[in-house]
């Protein structure tokens, strides 16, 4: 498949031309979905479904986790890539009204890199998984550093696009190194510039998310933060930061377009992302520092670790948890501002005919990139790499015997209390031989 039937038709009608960048990105995103769902379907069909129907009494949890995270990591890029599509096409255009994307070729390269590198990385969610050989975890860790590269490329390209566009519009900052950042319309009600607040607040949060992501990806530093609140700190600034803010902004924009309604409460709409940003930043700080001090995730800490009546009480975590309440309230207020605008728009009467226009930046550098035209070889390569990177750990959690051949432990003894099956067999053989 060189693309969908829709895009192939586009190529026939416009031979030699590249598929529009937004289509390229969304198409790759949907292809990735089809690939990443495979391990999830295997887990659901062969493990979760039989278990919940009572057809089997037990399943292999290591295998379940390995299959889940084989899906669970690529899915975060499935969430991220649409946000990147709008960062490349919409943001540079609306920041001045006539801005440009610095490099179209860089953007396409980014999407291809995600297609390849989103998959062979899932073990970084399982660095403490017993029974998976540490060298396989290290290989996935190295690929995870690899998948950070397209995000860094995006950061560069978006910043370059902003710089080019701002300096075109405001020649007085043409020679400035950093001051041009001040000319970005962070809070503006002019035309479509209100969208800029969603993109910029999201990007500032994502910067923090990227750094905490590098910590999580590092096999050794991960040992400090695994299962702590550091991890939700990370993903609330990524999916709960850039992705959600871009989605909220673009949803409001498309709602207004497709229903022919004027955006209501635009002032609230443009302020919302900054409240969200402030709240999420404080939340991230509290979760990260508390996490480094051991504050757990996925636990009702209120009845235990933060309860002065409990023997588990940890007073050193109290301040961070209380800070996260304050932060959470800020985030909710930001969301309410946006929701008032969204539902206010939805419930207002239409003022014009419904339409669809997407402000799209033209590229400043429009490189040919012939190797990235046909998707099929890249899709095949990506699927093969996915398979090869997962065969060794799948072998570990199934055949190598960790699940079925573990020695027996209980919580009273630091050493095994029963021998594994295979040890019992070989002892029997030795006894018979004597």
């Amino acid at each position: 498949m060189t693309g969908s039937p829709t895009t192939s038709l586009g190529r026939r009608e416009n031979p030699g031309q590249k598929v529009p960048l937004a289509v390229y990105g969304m198409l790759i995103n949907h292809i990735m979905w089809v690939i990443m769902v495979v391990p999830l379907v295997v887990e659901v069909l062969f493990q979760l479904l039989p278990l919940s129907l009572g057809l089997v009494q037990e399943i292999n949890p290591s295998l379940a986790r390995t299959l889940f995270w084989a899906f669970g990591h690529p899915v975060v890029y499935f969430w991220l890539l649409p946000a990147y599509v709008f960062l490349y096409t919409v943001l540079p255009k609306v920041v001045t009204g006539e801005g440009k994307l610095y490099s179209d070729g860089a953007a396409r390269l980014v999407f291809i890199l995600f297609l390849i590198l989103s998959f062979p990385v899932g073990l970084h969610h399982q660095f403490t998984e017993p029974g998976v050989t540490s060298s396989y975890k290290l290989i996935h860790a190295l690929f995870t550093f690899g998948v950070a590269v397209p995000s860094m490329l995006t950061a560069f390209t978006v910043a370059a696009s902003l710089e080019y566009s701002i300096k075109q519009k405001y020649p007085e900052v043409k020679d400035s190194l950093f001051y041009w950042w001040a000319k970005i319309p962070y809070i503006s009600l002019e035309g479509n510039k209100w969208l800029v607040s969603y993109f910029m607040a999201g990007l500032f949060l994502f910067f923090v998310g990227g750094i905490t992501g590098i910590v999580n990806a590092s096999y050794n530093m991960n040992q400090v933060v695994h299962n702590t609140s550091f991890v939700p700190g990370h993903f609330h600034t990524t999916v709960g930061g850039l992705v959600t803010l871009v989605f909220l902004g673009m949803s409001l924009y498309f709602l207004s377009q497709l229903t022919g309604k004027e955006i209501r409460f635009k002032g609230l709409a443009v302020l919302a992302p900054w409240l969200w940003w402030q709240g999420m930043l404080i939340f991230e700080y509290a979760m990260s520092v508390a996490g480094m001090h051991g504050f757990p995730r996925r636990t009702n800490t209120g009845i235990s670790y933060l309860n002065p009546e409990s023997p588990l009480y940890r007073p050193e975590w109290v301040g961070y948890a209380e800070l996260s309440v304050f932060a959470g309230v800020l985030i909710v207020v930001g969301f309410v501002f946006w929701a008032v605008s969204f539902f206010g728009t939805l419930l207002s009467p239409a003022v014009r005919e419904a339409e669809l226009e997407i402000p799209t930046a033209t590229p400043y550098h429009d490189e040919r990139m012939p190797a990235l035209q046909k998707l099929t070889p890249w899709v095949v390569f990506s699927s093969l790499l996915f398979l090869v990177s997962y065969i060794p750990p799948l072998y570990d959690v199934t055949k190598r015997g960790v699940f079925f051949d573990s020695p027996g432990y209980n919580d009273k003894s630091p050493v095994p209390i029963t021998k594994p099956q295979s040890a019992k067999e070989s002892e029997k053989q030795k006894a018979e031989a004597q």
Partner: protein
Amino acid sequence: MKVDKTIRNIIVAEIVFPIVLLVFGIYHGLMQVLYRAGVIKDMSVGGIEYYQGLTLHGVINAIVFTTILIVAFGNIVFLYYLKKAFKALGSMDQPCAYVWWHPYGCMGYVHQKGKRAIHLLPSSYGPLDLLPWCCAFGSWFYNPPLL
């Protein structure tokens, strides 16, 4: 560009529905910080237990909301950029938008609210009811038709 009424209604539904769900998802997020800081000192509030609320916050926000909205954006992008390329073709097929995603999303949400069986997050533990995963499952059939 002008958009045909049917496809426009489908896309608007694909935007509004996840946003409505997001309201509940964010409510559960607020509950999370209140529980974890000990502002709430119980295991449940309003009939929803801590771990159910946690699962709802994660699944509504990160699985249902994101995926349906991404499908909406996919429809929008394909419609806008490719329709422009096909002006000469007259009535080009609108990208297919399958509506049966929504029943899965609804089912998944109602199911989680209703049943008490979900205590543990799916990424770590096997025991989990089937229907919420219909969301993921259903989407697998959704995406190829989009292409």
